[in-house]
């Protein structure tokens, strides 16, 4: 029943998330022919802090569209919209129950706290990964329909797997914060603050290695969509950190007084 209620609460958020992801891809794809035709001039206009993006596109050669779509869908779309969706969904768990005063009612039901939290997490992870995957799967079709060009699906699927692990990690971190704090506004400020500051610091060479987005960086996605292997270190760190945050959230929730 918790699963059904979460799905019922979230359907419009998931729909909005899917629409934004799809909109992002459609808009950039439609602009791609002009972009490609004017690439060298556009690259000259790129600000310094985006030079690594320009370099990635210039170096891509025949795989430029593949890289372009990978950058836009995963590095830009999934990295920005995914964590935002993850935080919004995490806000709908324990902290929301505390704020609307239903936590006592929920915890008095004959169900363990671990199961309550895992039910929320399972639904939310599905809600985060499914729309991303749907858009990813549709990338070749969109490229064909909108600009009459072909791209390979398989590298995108690997990139999708990595982006899912990263978004899952951000969700688990947000869930941990949501269990620790009792106000949605505080959870949003802390989790959102971590992501926004981390994304800002990513664009500074000196601080890039210390940010969350180092795990979901442009290099990672460019390598994968060009046919390279899944970066095992970054992927494992995302999975490990996500699992640790989820375990931490369960431990805190099990012992917390309401």
């Amino acid at each position, binding site marked *: *029943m918790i699963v059904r209620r979460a799905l019922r609460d979230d359907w419009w958020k998931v729909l909005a998330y899917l629409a934004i992801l799809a909109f992002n891809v459609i808009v950039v794809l439609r602009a791609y022919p002009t972009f490609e035709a004017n690439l060298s001039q556009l690259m000259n206009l790129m600000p310094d802090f985006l030079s690594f993006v320009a370099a990635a596109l210039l170096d891509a050669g025949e795989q430029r569209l593949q890289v372009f779509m990978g950058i836009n869908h995963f590095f830009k779309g999934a990295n920005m919209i995914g964590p935002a969706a993850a935080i919004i969904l995490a806000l709908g768990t324990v902290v929301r129950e505390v704020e609307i*005063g239903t936590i*006592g*009612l929920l915890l*008095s039901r*004959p169900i363990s706290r671990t199961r309550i939290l895992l039910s929320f997490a399972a639904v939310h992870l599905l809600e985060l990964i499914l729309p991303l995957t749907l858009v990813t799967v549709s990338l070749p079709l969109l490229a064909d329909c909108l600009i009459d060009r072909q791209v390979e699906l398989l590298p995108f699927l690997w990139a999708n797997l990595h982006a899912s692990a990263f978004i899952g990690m951000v969700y688990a971190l947000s869930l941990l914060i949501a269990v620790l704090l009792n106000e949605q506004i505080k959870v949003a400020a802390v989790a959102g603050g971590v992501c926004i500051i981390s994304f800002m610091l990513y664009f500074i060479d000196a601080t890039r290695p210390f940010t969350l987005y180092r795990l979901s960086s442009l290099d990672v996605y460019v390598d994968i969509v060009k046919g390279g292997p899944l970066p095992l270190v970054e992927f494992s760190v995302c999975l490990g950190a996500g699992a640790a945050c989820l375990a931490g959230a369960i431990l805190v929730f099990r012992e917390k007084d309401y």
Partner: protein
Amino acid sequence: MAEAVISTNDLAKRYGAVAALDGVSLELARGEIVGFVGPNGAGKSTFMKLLLGIARPSAGAARVLGLDMIRGSEAIRRRVGYLPGDLGLYRNLRAGAFLAFCLSFYRDAPRGRGAELARLFELPLEQKIKGYSTGMRQKLGLVQALAAGAELLILDEPTKGLDPTSQALFADLLAEEQAEGRSVLLSSHVLEEVERMCHRIEFLDRGRIIPPDVVAAVREDFRRVLSATFRAGREPDLAAIPNVQDVRREKDRFLLRIDGEIGPALAALARMDVDSLEFNRPDLQEIYHAVYLSRRRS
């Protein structure tokens, strides 16, 4: 001795330096209705939350329905119907969906009981909860607790915001539950209701149960007051009545506080032109105020 449905031993809960509950030992027998009374912050809600595992005890132990409060928490909750004092509801759900959600966790909840109770309380189940009044929300909270078919009901301020008809209906339903062998622990600030519905009343103050002898002494103190009226035109010679410690006049009524043996005082009154004479029978309200007032003073 009937089997104890709730048995706590020095149950305590601290929030930092504040002792919300400070060593409460209580037994509730099967089929018994026990009422918790006490001022705000006395520890009534905390005690109930501890029994259900919503909060963890700092010290002490408890068994509920024969199960350890910590180890058997989930099994306990399967057999307990609970109404929280600070009841919050999912406002965007229809009342029927909310009820279905609450009861879906209870495998043994009698089918159709929720709808039947909702009908008795005149709750429109197809309506969204955000359209409900405060009283209707409270009734919905009561329905979900009563409809679980639980062996034990823990109800934190069950009649808060209810109209008199619904209060009466609730009292009837509680009597039915009790007749079927269910036990009830409830808290309330409506002392009249507690007095009417409960077999036993426990007074809580600052996280502790006030010892029964303290409450008994207060009751006894009230019983030592005689209320007498005299025939018109006769001014009684109250100084002639032995053992009268204090006299207070309320219109044409005299309240005589007797200290020591009451027999000689009655004998003296019998010789006067007494129109009516009765022992003071304090209600819970008076006892409550006397108990807490004396504790505040001390």
